[in-house]
């Protein structure tokens, strides 16, 4: 792999940018792999990378139906945080955040991880109490968190509409180490680093079925068709959030604790730097916003709240999100919206994911990411690779199992119960 450095950028600039090499190819699938990862989003690519890097499993293929990062990996609002309070989530997301902190060096690719602080606004005393409990629990678990009084909030984010009638802003709970990353760079960085370690990334290759032998899965049938479309593997990992139920049905895994819902995101026209943090609130509405390095304001809100596999959002939610935006940041009233889109996601029955083995030998599952898959990308790949390679979970994903629902050990961060649209 050609290493990137300040010097290589300078050299490229002086030599007409002719020094850049292709970072992944279009390999023909081999007939057999040690591991096939289905899904070429961030999680699938990260899994392949960590399998090769940490476990020496280099005979790996990533099969992607469309193009790299064309699903949720390229549709999210790029927020990275670890402000979770329940065992299972706490250690997993903090593990992931620690991997983020060194990811650009790890991959020799600038993922533009920016720890600009995640600022969670509170609007009522009861909300402040609930958040105090959450952030105290985080601090007890060694995760950073602090409270900004209204004066400090006003000083740091002067554009906030603090004294809005019925629900004035009473302060904010903040995770300073949280922030944003460039989502495409994360996909490309993992794809490049995985390719350099020998992983085959095969795009435009949909998994249409599974090959079985004595109850175990030993390979996949793909849209490439015929005998050449059959690819065999010792182990198969699914990382296809949004379409997990569809693939699980093909694999014979049966019903899962998932509903597929869609979530919209929006980006404004590029403007000069105006928002330095990730600003978020939930409870009296739901809204999150940050500014990309290109200048676009990237923001979003709630799910559309009905089962859907359509990657297009509806207008009522659009209106709610805009209303929430103008309520706290009235200064954005004249900023034009550039684009709006939607992604489909696995909404699990307790709002938390699963990274685990399944009851079918040879099949491993990484699913149920709800809204929060992007921040989990390195942690998910790291622990899923561990689970596949060692046939046992990493300590950080040991509680993210599929059988926790049957055992009544839910990891329900928001306390909404088995109502996926509310998580």
């Amino acid at each position, binding site marked *: 792999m050609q290493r990137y450095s300040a010097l290589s950028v300078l050299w490229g600039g002086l030599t007409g940018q002719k020094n850049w090499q292709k970072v992944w190819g279009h390999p023909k699938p081999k007939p057999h792999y040690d591991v096939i990862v289905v899904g070429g989003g961030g999680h699938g690519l990260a899994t392949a990378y960590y399998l090769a890097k940490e476990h020496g499993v280099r005979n790996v293929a990533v099969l992607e139906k469309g193009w790299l990062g064309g699903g949720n990996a390229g549709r999210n609002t790029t927020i990275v945080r670890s402000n979770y309070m329940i065992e299972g989530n706490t250690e997993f997301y903090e593990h992931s955040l620690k991997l983020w902190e060194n990811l650009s060096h790890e991959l020799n690719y600038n993922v533009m991880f920016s720890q600009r602080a995640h600022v969670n606004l509170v609007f009522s005393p009861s909300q402040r109490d609930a958040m105090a409990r959450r952030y105290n629990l985080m601090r007890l678990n060694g995760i950073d968190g602090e409270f900004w009084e209204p004066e400090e909030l006003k000083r740091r984010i002067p554009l906030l509409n603090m004294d809005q009638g019925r629900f004035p802003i009473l302060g904010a709970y903040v995770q300073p180490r949280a922030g944003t990353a460039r989502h495409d760079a994360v996909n490309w960085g993992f794809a490049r680093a995985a390719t350099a370690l020998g992983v085959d990334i095969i795009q435009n290759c949909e998994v249409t079925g599974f090959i079985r032998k004595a109850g175990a899965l030993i390979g996949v049938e793909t849209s490439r068709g015929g005998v050449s479309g059959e690819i065999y593997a010792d182990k198969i990992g699914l990382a296809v959030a949004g*379409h997990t*139920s*569809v693939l699980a049905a093909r694999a014979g895994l*049966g*019903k*899962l*604790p*998932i*509903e*597929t819902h869609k979530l919209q995101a929006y980006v404004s026209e590029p403007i000069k730097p105006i928002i330095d943090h990730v600003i978020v609130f939930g409870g009296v509405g739901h809204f999150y916003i940050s500014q990309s390095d290109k200048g676009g304001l990237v923001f979003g809100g709630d799910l559309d*709240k*009905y*089962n*859907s*596999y*359509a990657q297009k959002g*509806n*207008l*009522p939610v659009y209106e709610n999100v805009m209303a929430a935006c103008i309520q706290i940041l009235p200064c954005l009233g004249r900023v034009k919206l550039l684009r709006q889109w939607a992604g489909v996601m696995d909404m699990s*029955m307790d709002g938390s994911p699963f990274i685990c083995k399944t009851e079918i030998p040879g099949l491993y599952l990484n699913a149920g990411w709800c809204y929060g898959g992007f921040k989990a990308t390195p942690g998910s790949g790291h622990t899923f690779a561990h689970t596949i390679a060692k046939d046992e979970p990493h300590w950080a994903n040991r509680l993210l199992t599929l059988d926790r*629902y*049957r055992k009544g050990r839910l990891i329900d961060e928001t306390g909404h119960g*088995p*109502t*996926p*649209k509310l998580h």
Partner: protein
Amino acid sequence: MLRIPCPFCGPRDHSEFSYEGDATVKYPALDASEDEWFEAVFLRDNPRGPHRELWHHLYGCRAFLIVERDTLTHEIRGARLAHQPTAEALK
């Protein structure tokens, strides 16, 4: 915007409704086995295509409807009252 044909109110925007999920879930008897309850509470078919689902006309007639909708195209093939005796009385 989805348009849901409410048997009482005619075609109405979906923002008048609250979505209540998969209508094919059958809740077992209270003393049924743990397995049956586990399946009813937690497991879903989650189809990519035709889906039978419950919508509550919260800001309208407040009736619960069973709507046939495609989760990929959002096409709605019909809606009827979820409460069978009332549906039959209206025939």
